[in-house]
């Protein structure tokens, strides 16, 4: 059986890639995709912990899996909403460059 550390390193790497993407990308759609990466990193951690830390046959064996399904559902809804907002922004400003979206300040 593969040790849990492999899963955790994969999740951390995926999360770091997501954070990097959110920080440096200028395109709003790519930022959304980076956020998806971070969410999936979390999912990998949830599945790994659920599999390795809870003894077999325990009633809470599938708790992590259920969480992961919830995260996927929420992520889908979030992307649907966020893409709608991005679309409106594009219609208004002909651009989805987040550097230009800086009106929310003093």
């Amino acid at each position, binding site marked *: 059986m593969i040790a849990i550390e492999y899963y955790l390193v994969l999740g951390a790497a995926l999360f770091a890639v997501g*954070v990097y993407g959110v920080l440096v990308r200028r395109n709003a759609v790519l930022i959304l995709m980076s956020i998806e990466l971070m969410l999936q990193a979390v999912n990998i951690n949830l599945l790994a912990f659920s599999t390795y830390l809870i003894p077999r046959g325990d009633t809470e064996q599938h708790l992590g899996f259920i969480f992961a399904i919830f995260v996927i559902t929420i992520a889908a809804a979030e992307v649907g909403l966020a893409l709608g907002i991005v679309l409106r922004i594009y219609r208004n400003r002909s651009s989805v460059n*987040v550097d230009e979206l800086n009106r*929310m*300040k003093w």
Partner: protein
Amino acid sequence: MSEAGAIGLQWAWLAPAACIGAFGALALPALLRRNLPRSGVLLAVGAIGFSFVLFWFLLNSLLNGAQRDFTVSWFDAGGDAFDLGLTIDPVAMVMMGVITFVSLLVQIYSLGYMRGESRLAWYFAVHSLFAASMLGLVLTNSLLVLYVGWELVGICSYLLIGFWYERRSAAEAAKKAFITTRIGDVGLLVGILLLYYKLDTFHIPTILSEVQAGALSDGVMTLSAILIFLGAMGKSAQFPLHVWLPDAMEGPTPVSALIHAATMVVAGVYFVARMLPLFEAAPAVSELVIAIGLVTAVMGATMALTSNDLKRVLAYSTVSQIGFMILALGHGALAAAMFHLATHALFKALLFLGAGNVLHAIGEHSDVDIRRLGGLRARMPVTSVVFIIAALALSGIPPLSGFWSKDEILQAIWNNGNPATLVITIVAFFLSALYMTRLVWLVFFGKLKPENQSAHEAPAVMTGPIALLGVLTLVFGFTAPDWLDNVLSLPGEATGFASFVLDKADSFHEHVVLAAISSVVALAGIAFGLALYRHDLKLPEGVDRALAPVRTLASNKYYLDDAYQWAIDRVVLATGAATAWFDRYVVNDTGVDGSGKITALTSRVLRRHQTGQVSNYILVISAGALIFVVAITLAA
């Protein structure tokens, strides 16, 4: 008088209540700018007339020995009970008689004098309020209520002095009167609170019995007596707070007669009389009272002698006469002071109303130089006769009322005072006779000036009251001797006026030598006055030159007004400017604006960090989270 008409003395509260009612009925439409019918002002006259009738019933009950002290609970505040109450003793009764009688006559007189005046309803409304608050002031036994009445009469005085507020001088005079008396009132308030603090009651009889039982230390008694006397000095126009009274003559003449001669200005005398045991327990204050009374009496007389304004001569005369009352109180002579208060109220009200007739005759309201009057005797027979009677009474010619009361004062000084005081008082009596002679001669005798050819006697509604006052001035003095009880067979102990006021058998002080001296002095004053003003007697060169500085001093009102003006300009206004500067630049600009400016400055720097670039925020949040996790890991 018999038992039949006796009513309980507690019904005295009806008198101020009726006047308050008249005030409300007249003031509300006046404030709402609705017009009452002209005859509406008769409400005020009716209310005060009712009070005057009530006075006789109450007097009857008092003489029949009814209960005098009444108290009802007013309100409780945190364990302290405050009471409303009445004390109807002879001193209060004298005041009530004077107030209701003079108010009634003055209001009737005003019907004629103020005819055709707009705001007539307001005038009578304030008159009613004045009568109510003055009655409340004298009838109550609570220092708290007394203080309320004290301030209310001050307000009424202010409103009536400034009745013709379109004239700047009247508005200024009203302000001056109010502020000057306020200075004394502060002392009064502190004195009342000091007594309350020490004795835990506002009830005057309790306070006086505590004082007599020695419940207070000497220091507290002296201090509270001085503070209370300060209030009396302001209200009763005693040196050095007398400066407002002459200026108060800007008001309508009936107001001068009622408030600034007969009633309000003697409130201070009344209050000191009420609190006399306190003053007797503090001998040092009695000395002060004597000194103030004496200085005021002489100063007022000299200023009356040099003033050329008809009403101001009378005002200075009032200042001087109240000085005599205060002087008598300083010697502990309650009866003498109250008797002079009553006689003075009658003849001084008469003099003012007579002066009002003169002003009415020549069509002026105030500010009349007596040197341009003269010879009005032929045109105004009634006014001139009663005016002369009052002037003789004020001079102290027997057997008019002023003679008796001045005699009582002289005897009080003779019995308890020192010779120097007696001599100075006699000199002041001489001056009184002199200035009244001067006034009467310049106004009523001599040649009629061409501009006054149209002068005419006042209508009956105006001559009636002064004729009545004239009769009383003639006969009121005879209440002083003891024989009255033999003739009228009065019930109880009361015999002469002194016995009535002191509430015990106290024979009239017969002292033939003093009576003779005061009569001779009065006659000498009149003779000297006639010589000066009728026969144009020239004083010897040396005497004239010696008197010149005194004359300058007196005609400039002893430079007190100038001194006060200087003090206001240099001290009060300078302090005010300094305070205003502190408020403007320290409190406002530094304190209030400063805290706002610091916030604004800080935010101007800090808001640069809110870029609106979401990725910046995320970077900081991520870095923060990272540092947090690392810190926790290292710590664990």
